[in-house]
């Protein structure tokens, strides 16, 4: 799973650069952060509350930055 996650991260990083659109890059940044949290930071084995708080924080930050880069 870790190797698959790394491959997904590399792929998403490539897509973010290829698209060149800040909104897409910020959104993919949020997806990458969630992947790192779930797999590398082992939050998928954590208590549901930890997983929920982390996910909510990342989604909120992604939404805020996506809003700012599209203004």
């Amino acid at each position, binding site marked *: 799973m870790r190797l698959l996650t790394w491959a997904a991260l590399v792929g998403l990083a490539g897509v973010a650069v290829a698209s060149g659109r*800040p909104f897409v890059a910020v959104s993919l940044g949020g997806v990458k952060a969630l992947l790192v949290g779930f797999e590398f930071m082992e939050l998928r084995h*954590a208590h549901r509350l930890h997983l929920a708080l982390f996910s909510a924080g990342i989604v909120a930050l992604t939404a*805020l*930055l996506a809003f700012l*880069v599209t203004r």
Partner: protein
Amino acid sequence: MTRPLTEPPGGVLMWLIVALELVTFAMVFTLIGVLRMQQPALFHAGQAALSSTVGLVFTLLLITSGLLAAEAVHAYRLTRTHRAQRFLFAAIALGLAFVAFKLHDTAGHLAAGHRLGVDDFWDAYFLGTGFHLAHVLVGLVLLSVVAFRLHRARPPELETVAAVALFWHLCDLAWFFLFPLFFARA
């Protein structure tokens, strides 16, 4: 297996530190986003001096180093200490490559006349990426201390290795949001 509420992976203390750092980074990113929103032409001009390929290289170095740190924790959990140490040293090597490449890139910008105080874009760029670089350096020190202690008579606990890796992954997370603010342009 799901862990209890009082035992997050990496320990409560490191999660408190990571949460505090993430909030601090979020404030920095928001400030940069607001500056970018207020001065789009300035940011567009500044971004023309940045290479998205260079940004991609930074990203690849960090996420590969993050994978190696995660593998080190997994190996240490299986009591494969030599393997864990090799993974940690490899993660450190890629982290050092990131620092070297970042310093080289920064030297290039300084030589081109881009420095602090020139305009809001370069202030945001140097302060934002500098703040991130400071965290990378702290992470490298922590990884090195743990890696060199793995074969001591009293090796670190698994939770300590996991906590240090957790801090290292924080550097990945922060970079994922710094990258689009500076390197992504239409």
